[in-house]
């Protein structure tokens, strides 16, 4: 399997705060990977580094062999944990926007998914509820045929029904050879869809393991293992 993401001795410091320390990480294509860790462990920092929103203090990060830049941004589909669309836009305008900038964006797929959740493309984004705004963003992000999907806390702050919708949308709409990196601290909700987990704590990688191996060797669920590793 091809390596889609590689971090070599990656560190990020904000002033005196060390957000990530000497991370070495390699992720293969065609996997759904959980980036799991408590709040403030460095999950968002790592995802921002992958997306070029931050620059490393030390080390390097390679996406499909290249440093974050125009090429990497054209193959990474990013869902941040906030509304990043211009809320004065209509949903249809946001679709045009994605269609114009991302060659891998499938407009028809987006329209079908919107129809399925009864969202009229002519609606203005600012008139939508928080849950529907998240659905629109998720639909836009998952309508791309990207090589790497970075989903930062996609199920935080939504009700269980919306969680189910989000997770089913994720697993039903990604390319088989693509990788999904999904950050969350809500393990039990996602563990059934994960192939692999990366535990992160205080800017260090604590563990990178196949979910199957955890179940077989340790005889535990990922949630149990997480509680054990991150016990306060």
């Amino acid at each position: 399997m091809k390596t889609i993401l590689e971090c070599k001795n990656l560190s990020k410091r904000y002033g005196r705060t060390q957000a990530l320390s000497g991370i070495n990480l390699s992720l293969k294509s065609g996997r759904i990977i959980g980036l799991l860790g408590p709040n403030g462990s460095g999950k968002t920092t790592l995802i921002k580094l992958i997306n070029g929103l931050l620059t490393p203090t030390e080390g390097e990060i390679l996406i499909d062999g290249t440093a974050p830049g125009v090429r990497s941004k054209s193959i990474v589909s990013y869902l941040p944990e906030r509304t990043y669309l211009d809320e004065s836009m209509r949903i249809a305008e946001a679709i045009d926007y994605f269609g114009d900038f991302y060659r891998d964006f499938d407009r028809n797929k987006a329209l079908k998914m919107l129809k399925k959740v009864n969202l009229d493309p002519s609606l203005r984004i600012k008139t939508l509820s928080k849950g529907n705004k998240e659905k629109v963003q998720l639909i836009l992000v998952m309508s791309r045929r990207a090589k790497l999907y970075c989903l930062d806390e996609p199920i935080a702050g939504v009700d269980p029904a919306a969680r189910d919708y989000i997770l089913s949308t994720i697993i039903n709409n990604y390319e088989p050879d693509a990788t999904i990196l999904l950050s969350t601290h809500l393990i039990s909700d996602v563990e059934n869809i994960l192939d692999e987990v990366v535990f992160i704590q205080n800017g260090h990688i604590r563990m990178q393991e196949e979910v199957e191996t955890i179940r077989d060797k340790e005889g535990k669920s990922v949630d149990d293992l997480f509680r054990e590793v991150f016990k306060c």
Partner: protein
Amino acid sequence: MLGKLFKHEWIAISKLLVVIHGFILIFAILSRIFFEVSGGVDMAISGEVNDIVEIIAALIIFAIVLFICCAAMFTSVYIAYRFYKNVFTDQGYLTNTLPVTPTQIIVSKGLTALLWTVIDLAVLAVALLIMFANGEFMSVLLPALGRVLYYMGGLPAFCWILLVMILLAPFLMIIHMYFCVAVGSLIPNHKILGAIGVYIASYIIIQIISTIVLVITGLGFTAGSMDTTGMTSAEASYYVGSILTPMFLVSVICEIIAILVFFFVTKYIMTKKLNLE
């Protein structure tokens, strides 16, 4: 990608600015109709019709001047705010992850802003023409404009340099605002306040630097003590040109340096120091 960025920036920024400038033009047309009905601008202002017409005419003139000033100020502030909102707030998570370079983002937004600065000036001129121009005024204005073009061929060098200075001014104004927004974004939790602070500080620094440059080159003193007494007009023109040409040339060079510095600092912050919360 630059074309696509420009297209979307144009659509986004124009929504509000079209409404504001359209309002000014409609107001100008309605005012003109009022003046025409009252017997002309001169009659309305002079109060020869009646006092109420005079008061309304004065209010209309006051209002159009106010609207034009506010629209110009709003256009500048909106250009800066749009850059801040689209690059350094939540929207920045999308803008900065598009497969484009920071240079393309700055250039596309800058060009849109430049175009709107020109449109703003044009709307100002058109609104004033709609309100006040009459046949007599136009019969003077149009030949005068033609004569300006005719005389431009024989303009002395310093006038051309002055023209370059004037043309560079909007570029400088826009990139200066972007620079302030970018540097202000480095201040956590007070990005807008930071941008305003940077604007004031950089404005003062620019004034100090230009004074120092004029003092060092000695051009400021010479220009201040120009005396053309007893010279023929050709001599005076040559004398004034010999002083103003190097002075304006130094100013243009300073303007270009400032534009480049503001551009590269803004680009550096967007590339290396992006501070999205």
